[in-house]
C-alpha cells in the first residue's frame, strides 16, 4: 500500500521541526538546564558542610554589598579594558597586514596558519612559560642586565598587573585576529580603489572605508576577549602570584569552601554583568545585519 504523500507545506514544517530539535535539545540540556540549576541554587542556604533548598537573598546581599566584590570587579574591568586595547590594536594590525599587504592567497593562508601555531599547546602551558622568562633571574632580566639597560633585576615583570595583562594579550590576541581577518577578506577591493580614485588619503581610506567595514569582526573579537577575561580563573592567579583577585577567583574560592549557593549567586551576577556588557557592545554594531 502506498502511503499518502504529505502535502508539501506540512512536510516542510515537519522537516524544520526535525532539524531544529537536536540543537534545541542540546542547548536546553547543556546550557539552559545548568543555568537554571545555578540560578535556583543561588537562593539556597548553606552551613559549614551542607547546603539545602531555601529562598533567601542573603547570598546576593552579601555579594553585592561586599567591598571586595566591587574592588574585584573594578580590577577585573581594568584588566578587560587594557587587554582589549592591546588585543584590538595587535589584532587589527596583524589582520590588516595579512589581508591587504600580503597579495597572494597561498601566502595569506600560510601566514594565517603561522599565527595559530601557539595554539598547538594548551593555554595554561603558554601562560606558565612566561613565569621563568619574566622571573627575577629569568631570561628577560638577565638580558636587560647584560645589555646594560638595567643594573638590577626588574621585579615588576613577574607577579604584577603587567604580567597578567601580558599573558592575557598573548593568550587572546588571536581571537581578535581571526574575525577581523575574516571580515577584511570580504571587503571588496574595488571599494578601496574607488576611494583612492575619489582622492582619499591612506588614513581616510582606513578610517572611512576599512574600519567601518571591519566593525563586525572587531566586535566579535571584542566579545571573545571581554568574556574570556571576565571569566578568567587561572591566569590572574598565576601571573599575579596569587596577589590579585578576579571575579572568577572569588567564585572558585567559594566553591572550595563548600559555599556552593554563594558561588552560584556570584556566578549569576557575573553572568548578568557579562551579558550586559555584550548587550552594550551589540548596540554599536548589528552583527547579524553586517554578516
Amino acid at each position, binding site marked *: 500500500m502506498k502511503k499518502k504523500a504529505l502535502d508539501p507545506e506540512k512536510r516542510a514544517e515537519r522537516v524544520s521541526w526535525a532539524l531544529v530539535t537536536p540543537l534545541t535539545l542540546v542547548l536546553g540540556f547543556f546550557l539552559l538546564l545548568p543555568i537554571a540549576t545555578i540560578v535556583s541554587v543561588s537562593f539556597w542556604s548553606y552551613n559549614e558542610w*551542607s547546603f539545602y533548598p531555601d529562598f533567601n537573598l542573603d547570598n546576593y546581599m552579601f555579594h553585592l554589598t561586599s567591598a571586595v566584590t566591587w574592588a574585584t570587579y573594578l*580590577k577585573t574591568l581594568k584588566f578587560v579594558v587594557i587587554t582589549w586595547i592591546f588585543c584590538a590594536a595587535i589584532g587589527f594590525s596583524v589582520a590588516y597586514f595579512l589581508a591587504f599587504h600580503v597579495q597572494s592567497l597561498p601566502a595569506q593562508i600560510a601566514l594565517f596558519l603561522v599565527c595559530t601555531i601557539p595554539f598547538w599547546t594548551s593555554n595554561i602551558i603558554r601562560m606558565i612559560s612566561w*613565569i621563568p622568562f619574566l622571573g*627575577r633571574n*629569568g631570561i628577560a632580566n638577565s638580558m636587560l642586565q647584560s645589555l646594560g639597560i638595567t643594573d638590577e633585576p626588574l621585579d615588576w615583570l*613577574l607577579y604584577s598587573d603587567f604580567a597578567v595583562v601580558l599573558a592575557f594579550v598573548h593568550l587572546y590576541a588571536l581571537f581578535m585576529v581571526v574575525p577581523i581577518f575574516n571580515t577584511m577578506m570580504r571587503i571588496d577591493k574595488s571599494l578601496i580603489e574607488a576611494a583612492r580614485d575619489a582622492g582619499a588619503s591612506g588614513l581616510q581610506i582606513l578610517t572611512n572605508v576599512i574600519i567601518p567595514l571591519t566593525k563586525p569582526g572587531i566586535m566579535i573579537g571584542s566579545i571573545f576577549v571581554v568574556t574570556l577575561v571576565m571569566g578568567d580563573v587561572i591566569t590572574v592567579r598565576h601571573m599575579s*602570584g596569587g*596577589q590579585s583577585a578576579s571575579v572568577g577567583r572569588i567564585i572558585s574560592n567559594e566553591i*572550595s569552601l563548600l559555599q556552593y549557593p554563594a558561588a552560584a549567586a556570584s556566578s549569576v551576577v557575573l553572568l548578568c554583568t557579562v551579558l550586559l556588557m555584550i548587550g552594550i557592545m551589540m548596540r554599536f554594531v548589528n552583527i547579524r545585519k553586517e554578516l
Partner: protein
Amino acid sequence: MTEKLDTKGLSRRSVLKGGAAAAGAAIGSGAITGFPTIWAQNIKDITLRQFGTGVSNLNEVGKKVKEDLGFTLEMTALDSDSVTQRAATQPKSFDIADIEYWICKKVWGAGNLQAMDTSKIKNYDKIVGTFKSGKLTPESTIAQGTAPHTVGFTEGPESKTFSETETGWMTLIPTIYNADTLGIRPDLIGRPIDSWAELLNPEFKGKASILDISSIGIMDMAMVVEAMGEYKYPDKGNMTREEIDLTMAIFTEAKKNGQFRAFWKSFDESVNLMASGEVVIQSMWSPAITAVKSKGIPCVYQPLKEGYRSWGGGLGLSANLSGLELEAAYEYINWYLSGWVGGFLMRQGYYSAVPETSKEFMDANEWGYWFEGKEATDVIKNPFGDAMAQAGEVRDGGSFYDRMGAVACWNAVMDENQYMVRKWNEFIAA
C-alpha cells in the same frame, strides 16, 4: 576488576568454587597475615575506596595492601579543599577518608563518617600520646588550635559530638603528622634566622611568600604576629573577630608595602618560588624543602624559637561501611599501624602514629636520622631511591621529641571560620 565481575552472578556453585579458590589462597598466605579464615574466603573480592591528600595516598601503599591483605585499595589523591568537599558532600563515593584533623572537625557533623571501636585496634596502646591525651610526654603542654585529641574521640558509634577524653570510639585513626615551619634559602639570606617575625622583616621585601590556604595561612600569620610582639593570642586556633581583624591588618599593610612576592596554593608552586630564587623565606611543607634540595639548591626547614605549626592526618571510615567491608577496613587500619606504612612515610620525613612498629621497617641509620635526630652515617634515601641527605648531615630541627615537643599550634578551624575566610579574601584582593 575481573574478580569483582566474577561474583556478580551468584549461584551456589560459583560461590563454592570461588570460595574454595580464595580459601586456598588464604591458606597459602594465611600463615603470614593471620586472618580469621571465615571471611578470608571472600576478602579478595573486596575493594575499598580511599581518598585523601597526595601526602599519603601513594600507589605503593595500595600495592602492598594487595600483597599483604589480599584486597584491593583504590586511591584518589585530591587537594585539601576537594578532600573536605568530598567528605562532606559525597558520602557514597568513598569507604575510607584520609583527612586531616581540622577537616574532621569541619565535616564530622555531616554524619558521613562512623566512629571506630578502639578495642579492635591492635596497636591502640602504642599510639603516640599526642593523639590520645594530647600530651606527647606526660610533661608536655597541649598546643593551641585543633589539637588532634580534641576531635579524635566521640561519645559513641553514632555520636556527632567530640569528647575531650579517650572514650574507646575514635573519629580518625592517626596515620601521619609533622611539624611545619618556615623554609629559607640560607645562601641568599646569609645570616641566621630564628624567629617567625622574619617573614615580615623589610629586609626581605618582595622576597617573602605565604600560602593562600586560609585555614593554614592564618595560623602562620598568627605565629608571625606573636613573634613580632604585636599581640599575644589566648588561642591562635580560635580567634575572635577583633583578633582576626588585627592579624589581617598587619599583613595587609605588609602586602601593600610589597613584602610578598607571591602567594602559593599548591605544593609545586612553593617549590618553584624557592628554587627560582623569587622568594627567600616562606611558609613551606616538608616534602617541598626536599624537592628544592633535590635540585641541588640549598634550602633549610628552619626551626624557630617560637615553635612549630603542626598538622596531623588520619583514616576515617565511611558511615556506609558495614559487614565484611567494615571488617576489612579494620584489618587495613591495623595493618596501617603495624609498621610498614609508617616506615615508608617516615623515610619521607613524616612521623608515624606508632613509631615503635615503624622502627622494624627502617635501618638503624634511617631511624637515627629521621627519628632520633642523629647524624646520618650513610646516604639517606627516600622510598623512591632519591638521596635526601648525605652522611654527616642532621635533620633540620633534630629529633622527634625536639620537633613534636615544640609544637606551638595545630592547624585549626575556628568558630569564626566564615568571618575569617571573608577577611582572608579581602586580604588577597587588597
